[in-house]
């Protein structure tokens, strides 16, 4: 009799442990599914194909930014400059395109602008050992300043069809930005799991000192990470310009915070080293679904901001609970 009871308790405990592991792995996915289920009943038209595609299209920009942000946060860093880079690369690529230069060239220029300022972030973070927060807070400001300087403060209309196709076009009935986001995530999954660079990102996030003593070129890896984040921000900038039919110096305001929120919602630890790109896409979708659902339910934009803020705090709380449960 006594033996029986002990078996039961240890079984219970084991189920508890397994439940915890499942939660760690799939917790956010479960929340996403639940959210969708609730919205299916409460929000009119939520489940319609056109609305679902709309959600995906709307999250695509944040999705692309969050993919780069995941890399940065995995190394234990942060990139506050991506919103500003979105604006600058949009303005630059549109201006070049309007100057009559082939759109492929102007789009590449937009991407390069992003990669370049990302590299600058990486250089200061890696070489001068300034905290990434400070470095990218600086570029958060000066990159947007450059966008204003170059554009004179006004939106610049783009006429190139390729821009419009990237931002607002469709391919086989599906909006183009969705393809772009999907490609970015497949690529990032591959990079993180199947390249040395990806594993080095995790290693640096685990312990920078240990990484250095293992012969990992920490500085070079960090510069690559920030460049990649900048490059993806550049890509997002070009896509956004295509969607808005113009390069705008005010574009992308606050986007960095959405990207960070999505990454953390996706289970990546702010201290670095722990997290997966699959989590980030779920974080991105949760944020998109919430904002879409609120819109469908006629909740105004102001209240949406209030909810979004709450979600971000809840995300960090969840992150902390998770790391606590893992430390036991």
């Amino acid at each position, binding site marked *: 009799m006594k033996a029986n009871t002990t078996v039961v308790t*240890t079984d219970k405990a084991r189920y508890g442990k397994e439940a915890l592991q499942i939660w760690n792995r799939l917790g956010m996915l479960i929340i996403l599914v639940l959210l969708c289920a609730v919205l299916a009943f409460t929000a009119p038209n939520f489940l319609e194909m056109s609305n679902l595609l709309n959600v995906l299209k709307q999250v695509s920009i944040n999705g692309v930014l969050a993919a780069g942000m995941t890399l940065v946060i995995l190394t234990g860093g942060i990139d506050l400059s991506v919103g500003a880079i979105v604006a600058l690369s949009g303005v630059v690529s549109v201006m070049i395109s309007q100057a009559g230069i082939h759109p492929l060239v102007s789009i590449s220029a937009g991407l390069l602008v992003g990669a370049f300022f990302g590299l600058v972030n990486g250089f200061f973070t890696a070489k001068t050992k300034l905290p990434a927060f400070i470095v990218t807070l600086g570029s958060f400001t000066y990159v947007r300043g450059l966008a204003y300087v170059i554009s004179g403060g006004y939106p610049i209309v783009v006429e190139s069809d390729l821009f419009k196709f990237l931002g607002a076009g469709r391919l086989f009935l599906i909006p183009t930005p969705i393809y772009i986001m999907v490609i970015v995530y497949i690529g990032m999954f591959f990079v993180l799991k*199947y390249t040395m660079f990806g*594993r*080095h990102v995790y*290693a640096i996030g685990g312990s920078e000192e240990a990484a*250095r003593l*293992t012969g*990992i070129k920490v500085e070079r890896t960090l510069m690559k990470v920030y460049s990649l984040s900048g490059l993806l921000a550049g890509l997002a900038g070009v896509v956004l310009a295509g969607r808005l039919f113009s390069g705008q110096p005010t574009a992308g305001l606050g986007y960095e915070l959405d990207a960070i929120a999505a990454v953390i919602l996706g289970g990546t630890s702010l201290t670095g080293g722990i997290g997966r790109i699959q989590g980030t896409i779920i974080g991105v979708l949760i944020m998109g679904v919430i904002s879409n659902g609120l819109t469908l339910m006629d909740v105004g934009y102001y209240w949406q901001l209030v909810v979004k803020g709450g979600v971000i705090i809840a995300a960090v709380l969840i992150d902390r609970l998770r790391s606590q449960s893992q430390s036991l």
Partner: protein
Amino acid sequence: MNSVQLIENDVVSVSDSPSPILKMKGISKTFSGVTVLKNINLELYKGEVHALMGENGAGKSTLIKILSGIYQPDANGGSIIYKNNSVTWSGPVEAKKQGISVIHQELKLSPNLTISENILMGTKFPENKFGMVKWDDVYHKAKEILHSMGSELNPKTIVSTLSVAQQQVVEIARALSYNADVLIMDEPTASLTDKEIEKLFEIIEDLKKKGVAIVYISHRMDEIFRISNRYTVLRDGEWINSGPIKETNPEHLVKLMVGRELNSLFKRHTKVATSRVDDTKPALEINGISDKRVVKNVSFKIYPGEIVGLAGLVGAGRTELIRTIFGASQKTGGEILVNGEKVNITSPNDAIRHGIAHVPESRKEQGLFLNMSVKENIIMNELKKFRKAGKLNWKEIDQKADYLIKELGVKVSSSEQLVANLSGGNQQKVVIARWLSIGPKVLLLDEPTRGVDIGAKTEIHKIISKLAEAGLAVLVVSSELPEILGISDRILVMHEGKLQRHLTRQEATQEKIMFFATGGE
């Protein structure tokens, strides 16, 4: 009911019968289904030093955490009787208030604050009537406590500027500031010099006289037999034995701890390395190397197949020396030759390219990626070899990792297990395994068995010895003289950044090493 108990208390304290000040009875603790402690008994008497012994993973830390209120025992998992009252502590703060203080193995100081603030942290600072801190009183109080320990440290010094050993002194001073009745010391001597250890023992003797009960955890047998009155041995979360220290001996204790006989420490069979010296090139030759801070003009050679011990006190520059050789610290002078060829090393990456491997001093911060699996930790240096067109081949990585795990006898449930969950000894094996994959010629080991239990220690010594037999040149830094004497072919003794003396295995004794390490000529 309560009042009756209180009366009983008074009677007991008056009658001065030898009842324990603290008694743990049948303590059990389970974490998510895994039993960590099972039915542990521990009795502490006033004015005694009680050695708590056991291999890493035996449950000592968990027991201490229960004792100090960080964990609670399981429901129905035994009871703690403290000063004749059954107690459950809500947390470490309450335990501390009741007079239970812990000196942790890993220092828990605020590095950006002064010594005095750290010592008095957790007590109320003296204030004037406006609620402002009276700093002079703070310094004075801290100084008094430091003085009582015979320390001359200036209480206004910022803690981050102190050496590890000095920080340990601050940590002990803090524990004393609580007027503890029970003091738990978790490997307090791990980073102290012999002189400081003597000082610590004086303090402990003093505390004993004042009636403090001390729980003392250490892997060093000589210390245990010197200062303890009684011992308790744990193994695999179970209570094995307790008794007066006088009625046991080191061999017996080791046997209780590991559950099997051990031929004391590992003794390596060394070849007399003299004839070879003429015809073989040294694997590593160091000529007049210096660094920015400590290392001054050090020269030596290590031949293939040799294990050279690097002895010296904390702060003598041993770690700095091998970090400089490895390119982790900047070299300001001198040259390094590998296999007779001069090499230019400015980063760990350069050193690795020339076949130099380095197992750092602090496993957790410098050696391991705690966020990653055993497999990835082992393979991190070798990732390059598993690329095909830039893509990592995980299948091959798995095979290689499994091979190395087996080869070095790392105890894991699977190679996917998080390295953070391994015991210290197994973690160290993982770090060593990582380096083997690059096929090094020179292996630099910094305190390879610190915080490792005796069983794993012997295994690591065997691994090191095997590597030397396979032709590696090995340099071992260790603060444990028996370890250095046990495995080295030759011994270099450092003092204040200089190479003080070169001893052969035959002439080396603990006394001689200490003589030169303390500056003898």
